[in-house]
């Protein structure tokens, strides 16, 4: 039986169980004077949980382990000598066996019966090709019996699994049903399950972190075994070079400082522009705007968050950068009489400005929701004292909304740090170390992408540095976040 069918049956069983449990609980409630601990609905869910959870766990476990077991079994039967004679590795040979096996399943029953251990692979291939199943030319006769066996094993495994899962579902339902009693704490159990699910959901964040660390760890260690950490962390020159064929003397320098500086600088400029605009927009929408205009403006601003960043990048490259450059030329000309630009077309300012546009909705929409949910009584309290609207907002509403707004700002800052395309096109890729916002700079993320997707040698320091950069950025933002948590805790205010 196919997995969806099994799922369907399990759900059917749990549904039946649930309905029966509901009836039973209801009659219990009616018959006995004692009150039910939990409502019949919970008894029903209780039984449904018993029916589904163990059986689905079994199903999942089976689906994961059975193929592994079967494949080790079949692989063990691959004749070593024959394999050695062919050009195939064990994995490839098994792949062919597998595709023959799955091809067998596609064949109609009468044709499948004609296939025996003795069928030469050529005949089988012909059969399969007629059904539109391509077969590798490297297939050999000895693979056919294995394919047949594999197929048989899979069929058996599936039948056993089907029966086991369905029986377990039925048993679970019965078990749950039997436990129904007036004092059964069905609600608590069901809520325990819900809670378990909630905990599982929040652990995904941790799993993701672990995953990220592990997907970068080995390469990072590899990198640091070639380039000394001191050189990386304290170097002020970023010039990795292209790893030339003989890699003679082209080790390059991997100074991290200019990238970090660029990241923080560009992020800061973007935040400096986006936060006031976003916050004021949010305040206006939440406090002043008519509901109607708000419901138009807000989604419009949200569109800014959804425009692909490459579009922003080209916007910066084609429009904003040259505009700022020409503007600076004019200004310089008017002030000093010397018509030369002091803002470069690619600059920290350009990148910050364009990135800020993208970030506006992060600040505005999230803050708007938070500000709106501050209770009216607080506003009334302040207005009733003769505060103006803006005073009310500044002194009462914003402080009350602060924890939420801080979260929104953190999220915004995070986006600013993680952005690539805009920086590449607006600020360039030159890793300068400068304080001048009119000069090009670049960020860690840009370099991660560049080093990872270039034509470099894949196990040279030039590529591996991407992992080191990613890891370092990860650790830095982690520290910043720990600090932010500490700050937020300190200033957390609860209103009511």
């Amino acid at each position, binding site marked *: 039986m196919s997995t969806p069918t099994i799922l369907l049956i399990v759900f059917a069983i749990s549904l039946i169980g649930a309905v029966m449990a509901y009836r039973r609980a209801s009659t219990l409630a009616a018959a006995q004077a004692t009150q039910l601990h939990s409502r019949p609905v919970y008894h029903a869910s209780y039984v449904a949980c018993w029916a589904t959870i163990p059986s689905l766990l079994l199903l999942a476990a089976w689906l994961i382990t059975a193929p592994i077991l079967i494949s080790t079994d079949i692989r063990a039967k691959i004749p070593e000598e024959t394999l050695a004679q062919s050009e195939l590795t064990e994995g490839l040979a098994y792949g062919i066996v597998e595709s023959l096996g799955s091809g067998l399943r596609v064949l109609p029953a009468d044709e499948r019966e004609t296939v025996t251990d003795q069928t030469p692979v050529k005949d089988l291939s012909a059969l399969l090709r007629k059904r539109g199943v391509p077969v590798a030319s490297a*297939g050999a006769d000895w693979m056919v019996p294995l394919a047949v066996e594999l197929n048989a094993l899979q069929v058996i495994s599936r039948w056993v699994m089907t029966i086991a899962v369905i029986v377990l579902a039925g048993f679970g339902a019965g078990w749950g049903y039997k436990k129904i009693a007036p004092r059964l704490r069905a609600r608590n159990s069901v809520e325990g399950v819900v809670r378990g699910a909630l905990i599982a959901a929040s652990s995904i964040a941790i799993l993701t972190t672990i995953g990220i660390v592990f997907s970068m760890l080995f390469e990072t260690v590899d990198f640091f075994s070639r380039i000394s950490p001191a050189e990386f962390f304290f170097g002020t020159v970023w010039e990795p070079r*292209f790893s030339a064929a003989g890699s003679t003397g082209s080790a390059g320098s991997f100074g991290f400082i200019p990238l970090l500086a660029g990241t923080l600088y560009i992020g800061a400029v973007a935040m400096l522009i986006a936060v006031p605009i976003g916050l004021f927009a949010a305040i206006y929408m939440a406090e002043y705007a008519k509901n109607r205009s708000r419901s138009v403006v807000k989604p419009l601003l949200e569109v800014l968050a959804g425009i692909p960043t490459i579009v922003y990048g080209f916007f910066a490259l084609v429009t904003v950068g040259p505009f700022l450059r020409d503007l600076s030329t004019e200004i310089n000309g008017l002030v000093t009489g010397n018509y030369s630009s002091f803002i470069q*077309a690619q600059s920290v300012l350009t990148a910050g400005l364009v990135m800020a546009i993208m970030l506006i909705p992060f600040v505005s929409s999230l803050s708007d929701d938070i500000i709106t949910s501050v209770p009216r009584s607080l506003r009334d309290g302040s207005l009733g004292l003769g505060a103006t609207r803006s005073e009310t907002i500044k002194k009462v509403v914003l402080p009350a909304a602060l924890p939420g707004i801080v979260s929104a700002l953190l999220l915004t800052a995070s986006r600013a740090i993680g952005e690539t395309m805009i920086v590449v096109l607006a600020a360039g890729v030159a890793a300068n170390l400068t304080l001048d916002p009119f000069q090009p700079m670049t960020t860690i993320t840009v370099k991660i992408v560049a080093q*990872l997707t*270039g034509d470099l*040698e894949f196990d040279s320091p030039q590529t591996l540095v991407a992992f080191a950069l990613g890891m370092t950025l990860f650790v830095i933002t982690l520290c910043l976040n720990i600090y932010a948590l500490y700050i937020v805790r300190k200033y957390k205010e609860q209103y009511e």
Partner: protein
Amino acid sequence: AGKQIHVAGSSTVLPYAQIVAENFGETFPDYQTPIIESGGSSAGLKQFCQGVGPDTIDVADASRSIRESEIEACAANGVTDISEVKFGYDGIVFASSASGPSFALDPAKIFGAMAAKVVKDGKVVANPNTSWKDVDASLPDQQITAFIPASNHGTREVFEEKVLAAGCEESGAKKAFMASGMDEKQAKDACIAVRTDGSISEISGDYTETLARIEANKKAVGVFGLAFYEQNEDKLKVATIDGITPSAATIANGKYPVSRPLYFYVKRAHLGVVPGLKDYVNFFLSEQMTGEGSPTVDYGLVPLPNDERAKQISDFEKGVELGSKS
């Protein structure tokens, strides 16, 4: 792998691979059109060397040859039978805005304009040239602004070796460097070091980005692939090198000096397993795909001479593997 050919690698090769794949799908309706991933030679080869089996890719495109250490890494994962296939050249040209003056360059002039250190009056100094005219009187009096590929690009390697290093040698700067007390290695490094005073910008993206930058700054000179230039001839004006105008013909006959070979690597272990893989490679190397007048050449590929293409075909047929070649 699986039922479809899976290719990954260089974004320079991508347009050609796309054209071939599309035509392959149309010509061989039995096979599904191959999937061509883009992501750089590095990522492509890394995927390629991940191992053999249905979950790994079959072909890696590269705009450079595979490195020794990469071959080792491949071998460590069981990828030992690799065929290297060279299918053409990528011409690298210097071009400026169509509305500006034309440039007649040579490696020495480019070196003079772009190197971090140059020789002036016999002394090694930080590059003082601000206008092309300062470099050579024959060049237009225009501020030096150039967009060159960033160091993650294969093109950069070619640029450094065939332009900067050559120009360094030609102009005698290398000798002067060594005379000033640098050893061989330092001099070599100095030859390919690009000035960082802001007049030269690196581009880590594609040529579209370079083009956009040149449109925004009409005085700039940029480095492009020949194919890209040919598609945008109405916007760009190409510079001659040593008096030679780059074209498929001048590159193929070796007159134009700046070009690089393009490759793809085939996992031989997959040949019998992935349907159509062999046909794909042969189709790629066929006259109608990469020969004279083929769509890839229309697009800008510099084709291999016919005999060399024939050799690639026969090498592949014979199963000549990496390593066994040299």
